[in-house]
């Protein structure tokens, strides 16, 4: 159990001399507190697995340091780091029974036999594996095997953190739900720091207290699921999280107003000085834009199609060339061609070169 600090941590598979832009992980500094549930979220190739492997010691960083409770563990090998990791595909020791598999990490560290037995029982119980304890692990199904892998990750009570590298990839969708809630429950019960890598936003948002969104080797935002939804710090976070994602439209912003195609949209905050020469966009989630009958004073848009998601309907529209999604209010009958858009000014954000600009209230 430990607080984890990353200090200017960066890694390139091409070595330290590689061009800064080619680094798989660009320099990052952040702190993860003891007992937290963190998710590293991002598309494939964004550097999240690299970051995980740096923490577990499978990969040695090109630059920077990793501290566990203030102690620099960067040069230590994986064995000495006191970390547990669960991989994407189940890793099972073929010749052992399920129980022996679970006991393996403890035995290797010389934990007394009685303690090993008690801990294995507890973990098997939590993962519903008690029934299989004396069976050979090879003959089980893929998801039972992955449960064993999870169990081996959780069995040590003294680890600094448990790392999960997309552990539910091989699991059936129905079981995925169960296992995910199980992990969440285990996190509460065992009081372990957990770091969970995934490219599935639902998985990340349901599992973690803090979601770290990564894009192109950079950490673009770290926050609670609500923060990521309400106030994306980067346009990437805006459209990666949420379904449909955030609308991002080029606009001219001054003071309390944004102009799109010469049409004025009111803003909740005041944007005085914007960086000169930057690309200015406004971002607003589809949930905070309603369509209405065309009227003067409303930004008008052309209807392309309506997506019915069951719980809500979203209209896909076009403003000039820009694609846009907006909510269809319940009971509203959608006209065939043009509609007006009603914005909720409190949820319209301004981005300069893809980064959030904080306005003055």
């Amino acid at each position: 159990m430990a607080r984890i600090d990353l200090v200017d941590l960066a890694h390139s598979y091409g070595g330290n001399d590689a061009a800064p832009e080619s680094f798989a992980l660009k320099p990052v500094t952040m702190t993860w507190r003891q007992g937290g549930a963190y998710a590293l979220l991002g598309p494939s190739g964004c550097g999240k697995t690299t970051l995980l492997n740096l923490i577990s010691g499978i990969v040695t960083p090109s630059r920077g340091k990793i501290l566990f409770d203030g102690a620099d563990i960067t040069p230590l090998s994986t064995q000495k780091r006191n970390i547990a990791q669960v991989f994407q595909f189940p890793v099972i020791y073929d010749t052992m029974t399920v129980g022996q598999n679970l006991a393996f990490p403890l035995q290797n560290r010389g934990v007394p036999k009685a303690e090993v037995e008690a801990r294995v029982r507890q973990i098997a119980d939590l993962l519903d594996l008690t029934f299989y304890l004396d069976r050979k692990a090879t003959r089980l199904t893929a998801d039972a095997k992955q449960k064993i892998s999870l169990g081996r990750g959780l069995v040590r009570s003294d680890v600094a953190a448990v790392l999960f590298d997309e552990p539910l990839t091989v699991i059936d969708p129905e079981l995925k739900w169960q296992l995910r809630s199980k992990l969440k429950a285990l996190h509460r019960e065992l009081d372990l720091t957990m770091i969970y890598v995934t490219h599935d936003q639902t998985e990340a948002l349901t599992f973690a207290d803090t979601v770290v969104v990564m894009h192109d080797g950079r950490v673009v935002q770290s926050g609670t699921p609500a923060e990521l939804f309400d106030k994306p710090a980067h346009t990437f976070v805006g459209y990666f999280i949420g379904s449909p994602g955030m609308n991002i439209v080029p606009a001219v912003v001054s003071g309390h107003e944004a102009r799109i195609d010469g049409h004025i949209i009111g803003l909740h905050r005041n944007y005085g000085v914007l960086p000169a020469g930057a690309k200015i966009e406004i971002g607003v989630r589809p949930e905070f834009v309603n369509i209405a009958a065309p009227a003067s004073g409303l930004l008008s848009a052309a209807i392309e199609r309506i997506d019915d998601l069951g719980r809500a309907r979203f209209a896909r529209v076009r403003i000039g060339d820009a694609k846009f999604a907006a909510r269809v209010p319940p009971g509203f009958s959608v006209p065939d061609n043009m509609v007006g858009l009603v914005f909720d000014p409190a949820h319209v954000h301004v981005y300069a070169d893809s980064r959030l600009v904080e306005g003055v209230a």
Partner: protein
Amino acid sequence: MDKIVNQKAWFLVLPVFAVVAFSAILPLMTVVNYSMQDTFGNNQFFWNGVGWFKELLDPSTDLGGRFLASLGRNLLFSAIILAIEVPLGIVVALSMPREGWTVAVCLVILALPLLIPWNVVGTIWQIFGRPDIGLLGYTLNSLGFDYNYVSNEFDAWATVIVMDVWHWTSLVALLCYAGLKSIPDAYYQAAQIDGASRWAVFKAIQLPKMNRVLLIAVLLRFMDSFMIYTEPFVVTGGGPGNSTTFVSIELVKIALGQFDLGKAAALSLVYNLIILIVCWVFYTVMTNVGTERPEKKGAA
């Protein structure tokens, strides 16, 4: 659904059948024919029934004694070389590099002995071990060891065994190396994280993942060593005395040395049968190992 019956397909099988009959079945039947008869030369044959087979399995007769003694020597030889080559092959495979240009170098060096013809291997070691001009024999003798594979039984055995180890350990090593290479990195990473020692990694991951290739290696090495002929024949000629006379050498002595076709035919049939049975046992074991049999539901 009715099956379409087309007997013309037999014509496609016929050529193969003819070739196999001519190359395998006919010669084998000739041997069976000889094994039931005795000959006193001049192409005169006399019916002997199963007489030769009875003698073959009775250690009190000359034929039976020679056969069973050579069979014992052969099994001992196979056991010794398996006990040396399999562990040694595993060690070699484990100490080979996993990537880089050195891999190619190691593979070529390992493959070299496998490419040398049997009788050349025999000749190499025959000369290598000679006390007067051979590098090994001369060195050992000048170091004070009384090494002479022509007159000393132990030296003859040692020479034949070391020669086989030199010739064939590479095969075991290459098979094991292939088995090791097929283990995904995640296993090693997981073992690191689980804090496994080098020995635990070997026992829990590498050995179980190699068990299929190891079975193949054991099968191949057993069959080859059980049928060994050329190398010991070239080096020791079966001597000193009969000490390195294996079944195949005994067979050739009887068939071509004494021209006892009946006895030789009976011996070769039994020899063949032993090999077939061992082959079948190995094959059955191999195809069953590693297959995941579904467990009965509800079994505790």
